[in-house]
């Protein structure tokens, strides 16, 4: 090759700075949670301002606090930007096919009930192509933990509308505005039979950590919906400047639900309208949990 350039050259700008040393943040090479992530794969692929990383950090933190050894935590994802979480957590991690994270996780969990199996995936993966598995897993109330990044679109494939996109919002497959009505996750999951359903946004980091931790201790099907900025796929087409603006909007508009009534049409989310965004725990109950039938202990 004509001239070999090494990686070093690429860093020239970082070491060449206009800011006073006193203003420089102390640089380091590792993060306190690096043991729980595949730090060698950082930086991850997510866009600047994307909320997925924030939610993944909450998950890492909750694992650390769970008192369950990381080796017994398993994460299963489908396909999508959110689905890349499986590839970044230093856990036994399975990045399956689009829509099939839940049944894969069910197989894992039933085959080894000692594992704490979390499905971490996107709204499109879980509710569009994977919708059938979602409702049936909730109906069975099978003991898996679902964390759903709801960014109101298919981020990975470039901002198409999906089953959580508000009616009228724009997307690359809805240049004239989305003609469809979205799902209301808490209502849907409540109707199906989930034991626990909460909704937060990417700004609710403490509540997210808390609910993830709670879900580890709560048997049955749990579902945490996290509204999360996708500035590139959704924000751009819908007048939201960047991830920051969407986070601000969540900070300002979020209203904690009081009675847990999931039916209200008020629950609908439309980021473009001056509409409160209801967050909180919508369902927390004890329905019978799916367990494989044991007829007689094997004669071992």
């Amino acid at each position, binding site marked *: 090759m004509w001239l070999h350039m090494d990686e070093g050259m690429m860093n020239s700008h970082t070491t060449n700075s206009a800011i006073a040393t006193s203003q420089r943040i102390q640089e380091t090479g590792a993060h306190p949670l690096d043991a729980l992530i595949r730090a060698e794969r950082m930086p991850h692929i997510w866009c600047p301002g994307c909320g997925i990383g924030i939610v993944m950090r909450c998950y890492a933190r909750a694992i650390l606090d769970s008192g369950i050894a990381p080796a017994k935590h398993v994460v299963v994802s489908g396909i999508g930007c959110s689905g890349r979480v499986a590839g970044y957590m230093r856990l036994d991690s399975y990045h*399956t096919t689009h829509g099939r994270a839940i049944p894969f996780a069910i197989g894992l969990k039933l085959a080894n009930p000692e594992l704490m199996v979390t499905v971490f995936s996107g709204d499109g993966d879980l509710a569009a192509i994977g919708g059938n598995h979602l409702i*049936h897993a909730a109906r069975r109330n099978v003991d898996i933990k679902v964390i759903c990044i709801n960014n109101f679109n298919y981020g990975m494939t470039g901002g198409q509308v999906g089953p959580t996109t508000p009616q009228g919002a724009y997307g690359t497959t809805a240049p004239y505005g989305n003609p469809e009505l979205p799902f209301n996750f808490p209502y849907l999951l409540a109707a199906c039979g989930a034991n626990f359903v909460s909704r937060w946004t990417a700004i609710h980091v403490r509540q997210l950590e808390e609910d993830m931790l709670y879900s580890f201790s709560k048997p049955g099907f749990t579902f945490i919906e996290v509204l999360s900025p996708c500035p590139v796929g959704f924000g751009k087409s819908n007048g939201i400047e960047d991830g920051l603006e969407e986070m601000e909007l969540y900070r300002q508009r979020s209203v904690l639900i009081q009675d847990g009534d999931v039916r209200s049409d008020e629950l609908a989310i439309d980021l473009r309208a001056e509409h409160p965004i209801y967050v909180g725990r919508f369902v927390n109950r004890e329905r019978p949990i799916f367990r494989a039938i*044991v007829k007689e202990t094997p004669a071992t």
Partner: protein
Amino acid sequence: MSAASISSGEHFMSGDHACAEGAIAAGCSFFGGYPITPSTEIAEYLARRLPQVGGVFIQMEDELASIAAVLGASAAGKRAMTATSGPGLSLMLENIGLGVMMELPCVVVDVQRGAPSTGLPTMPGQADMMQARWGSHGDYSLVAYAPWSPQEMFNLTVRAFNVADRFRTPVLLMADEVVGHMVERVVIPPADQIEHWARKSPPDPPNGHFEAFRAEPDDLVPPIAHAGDGYYVHFTGLTHDTRGYPAMDAETHHALVTRLNEKVHRNAASILMTEAFELEQARIVVLSYGCTARSAKSAVRRARQQGIPVGLLRLISVWPFPQDELAALADGVDEFIVAEMNLGQVRLEVERVVRRPVLGVHHAGGEMIPPDPILQAIQHVAAHG
């Protein structure tokens, strides 16, 4: 699975039930499925049997979920299986590809019925053979067996689990309605006579150096670590490097895909199974498999009685295709006949390998091809060939 849980002894049993007993005997402890004629009896039988032996039976919401659950159970280290028929296999193909890519052992039974589409749900067919080979997108190789009797439904189910585990690959058991539903004597051996080929385990306990997709050079099979073992493995359907991490480049892709294909061919000696009948000095060879091979055998026997130098090569494994064996055989043989209950699928492979026209005895399905048309074909070839 303990010895006590195996139904050793002589039974009068349908092929579907024998397959289920084969799974139990092989130590299968997970079945996820969705009912479909003519495979449903496998699920029904295991719904009763698995809970008795500490295994898990779950009826999923569809076939997409069934195969996904099976892969999940396999990732947790269990022998896992599903059973279906053509329409269900069509729905499982995407995740069969995932199984290939993740190298997750599993057994998928297809009890073939009249096809395409809904076709003849309660009647036999053998027209999913090429689908078994090519149904999922992309280049891949997997293993497919074709039992011809309830006894072989038992035997090959055990074998399928062994091959799946040993070589980290999905294995298809391509049965048909005739074999699935017919009832015959089935002998289940004592537990200690049932072969068990284990999955390869990582050489060392977790130390941060285990690469979950680094294949060993001899057999191209990477040892497998399961969820909960402490290796923090990553499995993805994306093209991945030896650590299992996504690698979006053509080189890694080519290396991975060729290894996955080569893995199956490299280990052909442990995978391939054929049965020869009257092949010595045969100038005409009938090739057949599954239920049709029963008629083929009968036809060959009758033709031999008439003095026609004909033999039968029965494929017990159909994929990977035994091309070396067939090519070797082709040297001494004048004519080939392929009998199969479809419009010509495996015949195409035979034509390719033997490099000459091959007479096909075909029927689109709905009823088993009886011996007569095969005998006629033999006689025709003997007279005019």
